[in-house]
């Protein structure tokens, strides 16, 4: 499945939907969306990963970049990550920088 990414901003939340395979060749698109989201001064970022099959280190590094770019006041939620992606985030230590959620929780993310 080809990689696709999409940004939607509403209610001070930037929703970034990623699908397919996120690797070094496609990470730049993801990074551009993080840049755009940061410019809109949102309170939260939700990375919707239900259809993300694979995330290489380049993708994980963009999550780190998002954390740095947004600052600690902005919560970053990783939503619906598939088991392999979720485990990679946990094992490599990035789970400390984000909140992992099984499904989108509007009450939590948009509060």
């Amino acid at each position, binding site marked *: 499945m080809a990689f696709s990414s999409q940004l939607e901003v509403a209610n001070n939340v930037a929703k970034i939907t990623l699908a397919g395979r996120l690797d*070094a*060749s496609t*990470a730049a698109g993801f990074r551009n969306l993080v840049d755009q989201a940061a410019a809109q001064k949102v309170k939260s970022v939700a990375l919707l990963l239900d259809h993300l099959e694979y995330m*290489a*280190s*380049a993708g*994980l*590094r963009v999550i*780190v*970049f998002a*954390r*740095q770019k947004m600052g600690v006041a902005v919560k970053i939620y990783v939503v619906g990550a598939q088991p392999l992606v979720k*485990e*990679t985030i946990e*094992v*490599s*230590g*990035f789970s*400390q*920088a984000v909140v992992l959620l099984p499904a989108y929780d509007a009450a939590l993310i948009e509060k």
Partner: protein
Amino acid sequence: MDARIDFYPTHEIAGCKVRVGRPLPFGATLVPGGVNFSIFSRNTTACALVLFQKGESEPFAELPFPPEFRIGDVFCMIVFDLAVEEIEYGYRMEGPFDPATGQRFDATKVLSDPYARILGGREAWGVEPDWSAPYPHRARLAFDDFDWQGDRPLGLSFEDLVIYELHVRSFTQHPSSGVRNRGTYAGLAEKIPYLRELGVNCVELMPIFEFDEFENSRVNAETGERLLNYWGYSTVGFFAPKAGFAATGRLGMQMDELKTLVRALHGAGIEVMLDVVFNHTAEGNEQGPYISFRGIDNKTYYILTPEGYYYNFSGCGNTLNCNNPVVRSFVLDCLRYWASEYHIDGFRFDLASILGRDANGAPLANPPLLESLAFDPILSKCKLVAEAWDAGGLYQVGSFPAYGRWAEWNGKYRDDLRQFLKGDVGYAGAVATRIQGSPDLYGWNNRGPAASINFITCHDGFSLYDMVAYNGKHNEANGEHNNDGGNDNHSWNCGWEGDSTDPAVNALRQRQIKNAVALLLLSHGVPLLLAGDELARSQSGNNNNYCHDTGLSWIDWGALTAKAGMHRFVQKMIAFRHAHPVLRPRRHATGQVSPASGLPDLSFHGTSAWWADFSPGSRVLAFMLDGAEVKGSHASDNTLYVACNMYWEPLTFELPAAGTGTLWHVFANTGVDSPDDIFEPGQEPALPDQSSILVGGRSVVVLVAC
């Protein structure tokens, strides 16, 4: 201030935009818009940067360094617009191949950057490499974006450490480990609660610098087992963590996974010490492969004979030329990197005496490298521990150039304790010295008990169980007809060679293990435990277990149930050590009498109080530690008394008085079955008879006055 553009291309080479780079730091460093590549070679005639797409065998670009990109002996170049996540790099060096003069340049080889912080090519453990690959250990670019969340090295006092030596893979590779990612840094992180409960506060990781488990790999013709370079005492990349120990190695995330482990260990109050191997490299002798140093500047990096052959003080084919100023800087840079980038708390140097040899192999009185390490500002809080001998015959236990900083693995402690424990006569006096932190070795030159890393077992040699189950080594599985491994084991099988069904033999073995653990944790100095000894782990008598990726090496966590009594004993002994600062002094005991208690800080006894038996036929030793003034009179503690009866019959020990207002309580008695062999510190039962105690044959009793 306007955004400045200091880095801009001035040249185009092989289709890449470049400019002269910065000579420092060495290695590959991300800079605005590009990557700064810098490498040293004094004797090369030409150097080229070779760039690959990840995993490709053929490079996509090869960039010769123009003469103006060479500053002194350093080749440096910034390459712009690289896809940093997608490339691997190496170097090609031209120059003479003239072994007689120490030159071994080979321009057909692509060489790995010695400063590479991440290496591809061995991403997953145990996957047989493509032996025809022209560039097997592939330098990659690394990122420094890890979020440490305020972590820093713990800075525990050296004398307060209880070190636990472990092999990352062995610790959780057994199916019984129950972790998600067996044999990895992440797996070890899952076991932190176990380490906390056990009570150790420092893990010493056997080599985790990138190594090749397939180096010199072979099949044991008799067993069919594929034997590996399992322990990894043969470094391929000094700045790169072993990718095959990372669950995320396939993704190139080993740096993050290891840092996550260190951060989690620190969070649990556990320091991290690395076993580092600077005495030699994986390039071996004249027949070995070209990985980096041999092709970059052979005569700078290796100690060579006048004829140009490799000196072999390491026993592994070559010897790093550690006191050459360039190599010295390399070692320093490496350790500074691990201390600053990975928050490592300390280093144990394998065959450290090599680090004190000059370029001809002769021992130096004042080795520049060891001095530099001792006084380095970045390493100033790191623990430095020497394995104070080498394979070339240099044995420096007690005389290693210390500069007030270095501690040593105390091989004499191990040898004396083992012989005393198995009942050899005449070791009571030696053990009396060892248990007070070996003042004969470390009582001078501003060294204290913490200069003595006390151990009875370590990765080299028998496990603790095997020490009491085998008289001789049984290394047939290593495929060398039992000729490898040491013969000076000082072990005793308690009456039967190997596993036994005899309850009396097994009971004696359990007692002997407890005796050893008790003395180790009651000794002044820094105790080091071998992982698995608390579970009475066996290596089937193999005392050189370096090549087995099997149950012979792995910890079987089922033993946590089967050997619960042993585990409990070790855990309580560690807790006792933490509870009693009188066991962890900063200075050696002097025998001086405290005005507060009227007792000397340390006194020796025998079956008669105040009469130690140091005669040639003695197998007994008792000692008392006065708790009135400890930690330099800054604290007080209970007074402790320890009786060791290594004779096979029970003996009655007359007890010294416990001190005004206190009674002797029994903390441990290895002559009694679990659970009455040891008690919770602070909940010890009072001794009915305060004047004497019957100590069973081959048993240790520990009393606490309260």
